[in-house]
Each structure stands twice: as C-alpha cells, then as structure tokens.
C-alpha cells in the first residue's frame, strides 16, 4: 500500500516550494524559426526547501536529496535559526554516482570487505579502476597494500551504504558561531522540471455547450523526489539578459512576454521520474459556446521580429494579399471567468454526438488560442469566407517609426450569416500601437503582437476592416 499525502497549503505550510517555468512551445515561423536576437525563454525550476541541519564543530555539513540537475552557482542558504549568523565559506556540489566504478570511487578511504575465492579480505580502499583495486590491509608494521584483479579474482565488494556519498549532495563548510542544529532555507535552480498545459474540450452537439478543463502536466527528471511541495507554475517569459554577442543589435533590452502564474491549491508529491497532472482551473461544465470563423490574411511572422531595437522595416513585404490566399477556420469560443488568460498548450477536442451522447468522438488536437477571458478551439478550415489585404507603409528613420495603413476586406460566400474574427499580426516588432481613432472597428488585443476585429457578416456580405499601426524602435 502506498501512502501519498496531500495536504492543504493553508493548513500546513510547505517545507518545499517549487516554481516551474513552462516548456516553451516549438517556435512557429514561416521562414525556419530564425528568432534572431530573441530573448531565450526561462526554463527549469527554482526550488526552495526548508531543512534541519546539524553543523559540526569544523563547520562541515553534507546534505543529500537535492536535484542532480541543480545549478550549484544558484545555491542560496539562509539560517532561520540564526539569521545573519550563518554563511557559506566553501561549497562543493557532488553529483550522484551512477555506475559501479563511480560508486566505488566514492568509497576510497572507507573500510571495505573484498570477497575472493581464497576468503574475505578487509581493509581500506585506496584506489580503483576498471581492472584492479588497491586495498590497504594490516596494522602497524604489518600494514601493506594489496592489488587485486577485478576480473576473476574479486568476487564481491562489501562496503558501507549509510553515508550516502554516492547520491547528489551539497557539502558546505559553514561559518557560524552557533554549532549544532539549524533550520535553514535552501534555494537553488535546477533543470529537469518542466510543465506544459493540456486542455480538454468536449462539445455537446445536442445542447451546443462545451465542457472545458485545463490541466498542467509536470515532469520531474531531477533525480529526486519532492514531498508535500507547493507548486507554482509560470508560463511566459521572465527577464533574461540577451546573448552577449547580440547586444550590439539591441538598443533596448528585449521585453519579456507577460508571465502568467498559477499556484496549485494543494501540496503535491512530485516523485522522481514521475509525471504529475494538476488542474489549472475548476472545470467549466456545459459552458455556452459561440461559433466563429477566424480569418488570417497573412502568416504570423512575429517570431522572426522580436528585437525591439531592430525592426522588420521592409515596406515591400506583405503589402498585398490577394483573395483566396488567407486562412479561414471555424472555431468554438468559450468565455473564461474573471478575464482569465490561459497559458499556451495543446487542446484535445471531442464531441458528444446528438444521436448518441454516451459516445465520445475525437475531433482534433491543436494549440489552444487564449486571450484575456476567452479560449478558442479550432475545428476545421472554412472555404466560404474569403478576404484580401492591402497595406501602405512609411518608415521615418529620424523619428524611428514605421506607419502602416492596413485594409482587410472579407466576404461571406456562404448561405448563413457568420461571426467573423479577423486576426491581424503586428509582426514587425513587439513595440507597436494602434490608435482606436484610426480603426474602423474597435480591436481587441489577443496577444503580444495580435489584434482581433470581430464583425458579423450576413450571407453574401462584404465588409472591410481598416486600421493604422505605428511601430517604433
């Protein structure tokens, strides 16, 4: 029987808190993903643990049960027992020993017993390599070194396991006036902890509603387990210094994507080599849904133009998109409570058919599109909404601005009215603005470089969206 405790965060207070950054989604780029000068996404996890340690007189402390993937340069130690009175004067990170030779090497200097065909030999292990080992045996003037071949002669090696020297460990020499027990807070960054968002949308064909749930899948490949951990999951970037070699192009530091944080409401056991799924929000059951047809006249090239100091300033690019070149898709939308924005992730879409609601039919798997208060699930391409797009553009090198006037014409060639959402990508640089006075329809910002224009198109109707966007660098 297995005992896994789940304790309320509020009730207990976590001994371990872990902040994990989302696994970045694969770059989407029309031209091969050259995100030139882009700020790298934060990754991995920050782990904070509260521990009891016993500081010896020589100040040495060894702790195990830490991530084998830790970055030793990020370790911070703080005594809660004696704040300000304890500091690290020396730190060594001992990675875990995995192979038999590595484990043997960690026991050099220990008493070991070698089992041979001629009997057991006990002594101090002095040296080891794949072919032989050296044992110091005897005492006083009887002391001698014995070299033993490991191929055939050595049958077994017995050694103490209690010191945990083969596990990943931190060895400190601490400076403190107070030896003995301390409660300390240990913080470090580690790789090997990742998470991604997975969504489930079940469309009820008879009721025209959706059951929608959001899950986070956390994977622990750190080599250690965390029990009763308070988890915070972060999606989006955090400020990271750009690659030094690219500084010359970056007049302004890259702007991070706004981060979304989510704290799991219960303490969670995160076992080593384990995936853990937790819900990102309470499921929405029988949520009302809207059918929309999204229209994208151009591909999103934003990923190629992420530097705020370096603009995609070729005014001849994407100036004219003829009819039939854009992409129209039918999608289902649901509203999210309190203007919530969900992290990027995969959504699986199912249908409960009207004729047999007990059955589940899979409809698709795609990236969820979420903006503040809205989640959108793609169904299929739509052949009856067509459009064309024209732009005029003017770059002002002195003012460091580029002004682009855009007109998107859409036509509903179908026999039913549709609610269309024209998605426009402000792809040239993350620094842009659209003056509402210059828009024919009020837009909604749907992402760092996406604006959406919503309009109802009766059967056979044509409509236009116009706006002016000003980029700056």
């Amino acid at each position, binding site marked *: *029987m297995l005992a896994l405790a789940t304790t309320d965060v509020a009730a207990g207070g976590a001994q371990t808190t872990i902040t994990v950054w989302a696994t970045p989604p694969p770059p989407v780029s029309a031209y091969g993903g050259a995100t030139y000068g882009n700020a790298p996404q934060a990754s991995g996890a920050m782990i904070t643990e509260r521990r009891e340690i016993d500081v010896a007189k020589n100040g040495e402390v060894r702790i195990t049960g830490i991530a084998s993937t830790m970055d030793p340069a990020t370790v911070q130690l703080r005594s809660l027992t004696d704040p300000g009175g304890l500091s690290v004067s020396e730190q060594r990170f001992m990675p875990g020993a995995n192979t038999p030779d590595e484990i043997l090497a960690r026991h050099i200097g220990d008493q070991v017993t070698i089992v041979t065909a001629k009997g057991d030999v006990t002594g101090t292990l002095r040296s080891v390599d794949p072919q032989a080992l050296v044992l110091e045996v005897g005492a006083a003037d009887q002391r001698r070194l014995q070299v033993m071949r490991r191929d055939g002669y050595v049958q077994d090696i017995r050694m103490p396991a209690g010191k945990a020297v083969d596990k990943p460990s931190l060895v400190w020499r601490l400076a403190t006036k107070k030896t003995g027990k301390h409660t300390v807070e240990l913080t470090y960054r580690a790789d090997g902890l990742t998470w991604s968002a997975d969504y*489930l949308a079940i469309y009820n*064909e008879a009721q025209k509603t959706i059951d929608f749930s959001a899950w986070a899948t956390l994977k622990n490949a750190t080599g250690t387990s965390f029990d009763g951990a308070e988890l915070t999951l972060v999606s989006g970037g955090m400020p990271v210094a750009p690659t030094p070699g690219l500084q010359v192009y970056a007049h302004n530091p890259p702007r991070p994507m706004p981060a979304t944080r989510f704290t799991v409401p219960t303490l969670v*056991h995160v076992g080593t080599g384990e995936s853990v799924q937790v819900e990102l929000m309470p*499921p929405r059951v029988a949520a009302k849904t809207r059918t929309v047809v999204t229209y994208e006249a151009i591909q999103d090239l934003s990923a190629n133009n992420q530097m705020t100091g370096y603009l995609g300033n070729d005014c001849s690019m994407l100036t004219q998109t003829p009819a039939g070149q854009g992409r129209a898709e039918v999608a289902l939308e649901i509203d999210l409570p309190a203007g919530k924005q969900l992290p990027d992730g995969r959504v699986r879409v199912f249908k409960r058919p009207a004729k047999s609601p007990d059955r*589940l039919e899979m409809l698709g798997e795609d990236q969820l599109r979420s903006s503040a208060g809205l989640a959108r699930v793609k169904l299929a391409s739509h052949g009856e909404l067509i459009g064309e797009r024209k732009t005029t553009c003017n770059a002002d090198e002195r003012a460091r601005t580029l002004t682009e006037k855009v007109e998107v014409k859409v036509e509903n060639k179908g026999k039913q009215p549709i609610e269309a959402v024209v998605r426009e990508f402000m792809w040239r640089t993350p620094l842009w603005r659209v003056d509402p006075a210059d828009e024919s329809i009020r837009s909604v910002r749907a992402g760092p470089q996406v604006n959406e224009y919503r309009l109802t198109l009766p059967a056979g109707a044509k409509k236009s969206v116009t706006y002016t966007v000003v980029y700056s660098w």
Partner: protein
Amino acid sequence: MYRLVVVVLLAGCGARAPTKTTRPLGDDITLYRDWALIRQRIALDVTSASATFKVKIPAGVSAEQLIVVDRGGLAITAIHLAFDPKKAVDDADAATPPPPAKPAELALDVQAKRAGRYSIVIGYITNRIAWDVAYTMTATPERDHATLRGALAIRNTSGIALRAGHARLIDAELGPWRGKSAEQLAAALTGAAQGSTPPAAPRELGSLVIGEGETRVELLRASTRAMSSVLVYDPIGTKLDNPGATPLRDVRMGAGAASSRVTESFEVQRDKEATAGLPAGPVRLLERRANGSFIVLGESRLFDVATRVAEVDTIAVGTAEGVAGTRERRELTIDDERHRVVEEFVITLVNKRPTPASVLIREHLYRGQNWTLAYPQANTQGVIASKEGPQQISLRTVVPARSQTKILYVVVYTWGQ
C-alpha cells in the same frame, strides 16, 4: 472468459480508511486503424476526505495523453504517472505497435466531500490494441447466392485486459477521421456545404472483452446475398488516387496505355444496412462442392474506401475470353484561372462472343476528390453511371454480340471555389 482487473488501492495515511477494491463498470473502446481510444471507467470506494488510488492503464500511455472525462463528483487534485526520462520517443510517436509490456500504473489523488462509491472516467489513446479483418463468401452450387462472413482479430499488447461495455470500430486512421468529423461539425455549424462522401461509419461491436493476446470477434451474422456473373473492365485501379481536394495537374497522369483485360467476375449485392461500417479487408470467394469440400473461386477485397458507397462488390475469378477494352483520353483542359480541370475519356469495349456481354466499367477519378461527372448524367444512352466511392464510379453497359460499344465520359475537377 477474460476479466478486467483494475487494481485500485486506497492509500492509507494516518487515520485513512483501509484499502477497498473496485469492480469495473465497463469501458468504452473505439478502435481505429492506428490507435484505440479508450474511456476507462474506474469505481473508487472513498472513505476519507482525501485519498490516493492506484489504477492500471495500458503500457506506454503518457501523462500528456491522459484526459479526465468525468470526475464523478470527486475533486482530483493530482494524477501521478511514471515516465522514462531517457526514452526520447513516447509510444504515442511509435510507428509500429510495440511488443507486450507491463501495464503502467496511475496514482490518483482525490478529495471527496463525503464517503461513498464514486465512478470516474479517464480517457487515453493507445497503439497497443491492433486488429485485422478477413471475410469469406461461400457461393451456392448454382452460383446465384453467396453467404458473407467476417471476423475481426484483435491483438492486445497493452498489459491489461479491457472489458468494454461499448466497443466500436472505425475503419480509418484516427487523424484523418477526426479531421473529417471536425469538418462535418464545422460545416453544420456554419451552414457550409459538406462533401458527398461520408467518413467511415462506426461499426458497433457491442460489449466486448479484450484480453491480453488475441481475441476473435464475429463481425456479422452469416447473411445470404444475390450473386451473378458480370464482366468488369477496370483498366487503372486505385494506384493513381490522389486523396487531396486540389486536383493534380500533371498532363501525363493516366494518359498512358491502359490494360485491355476484362475480367470474369461475380458481383454480390451489398446489404447496406448490414454492412454499414464494416472495415476493409481481404475476401475469399469459396464454393461448396457436392462432397462438402470447398474450392476457392477468387480473392479480392471488400469495403475499401474506394467502394464505400458502392451497391455491389465484385470478385474477379479470371480473364474474360472474347471481350477486351481500351481507354483513351480525348481531351484535357487545365484552367488555372477558373480553377477547373476538364478531362474526357472514351472507353471502347469489343465483344467477339456470339452473345451480348454485360460489362461493368470501373473508372477512377484519380486527380482529386472534388469532381463532378459532366457526362454521362445518371442514365444516358443505356449507360448507367453510379458513384462507388470518393474517387470511383462505375458505368454499366451491354455490348451486343460480335460488336463494339464506345462510352464517353467527362469529369470536371475544381478547387478553391
């Protein structure tokens, strides 16, 4: 008799309740060509406010594939599943079904407001349930009727036995099928036009126990259909079929010399209701002799996508002596501006026999799936045209004795209109 064994252990912590076992209530399984979609129902006896249960699921299922379909009134605070960080590719990405393996084990952390029995449903896909199908047709000595039988062989290497309250089979790969289903729903929601060839219909298998190893399932009761002999001229076959919506515009496509062989065949009427959703597979046409032994008259395939809406199935048994055909393309017009490709063919059938020959001509509209037959319409000049599948038509005619007949047809492909 196989039994599904779902081991559920109640995790004890402090004063938590003792372990309770559960009785499965019945899973729901949909078998596709490449994957099986499984909804696994799990009964949990919850006796304390929070508990952890262990559940066996098929080997190779990763956490990302898991979905919680129905919480059954419980709050599921976390789902734990082991993964191998050294394994670069999940089973989900594997091209071929993997060998048998131990099942994976889920740990479910749940919270309940009150003690009781709860039923939750989880879902996942697995490529460890593979299947094949085979048919036989047994002809009467008069060769005027045939009895169709079919059986499904399901191989389960998931490590657990599955007891499906409801199981069905869909003769398509999951990706294309779900795409078609999504297209249909999207079209229904927006009033857009739908394709004339429906996606593969699900074949209900009823309740089913799929134990580890191989399970054989009868697909249909033996049913007798009218059978008759017919000559079939199918000079191209399905080898050129392009399943895309936009037609291929290669001028040489299908314009080369075609086979002149006409086959002696048997055609067997299809019972649309009884055969709806049956998967494609090989068929052997057998004849029972007077002494009770069987001889094989011919082999073919039944219910392929190409013949999804056909009225009859044909099984070739040899070459027709004295009857031959030729196929000639008369015209090809590619109009990129109006998004149209027009292609005209003439089929010539020569009958040297002293009696009239009834011939079924099978033509494949291989350039793409958006097409219209401009000529002949349904029944023109004694030629009966009918659609057999998304890219296949049949044209029936009778060639008089010692004579020849020419049949012209015109197909118009369109795209992006």
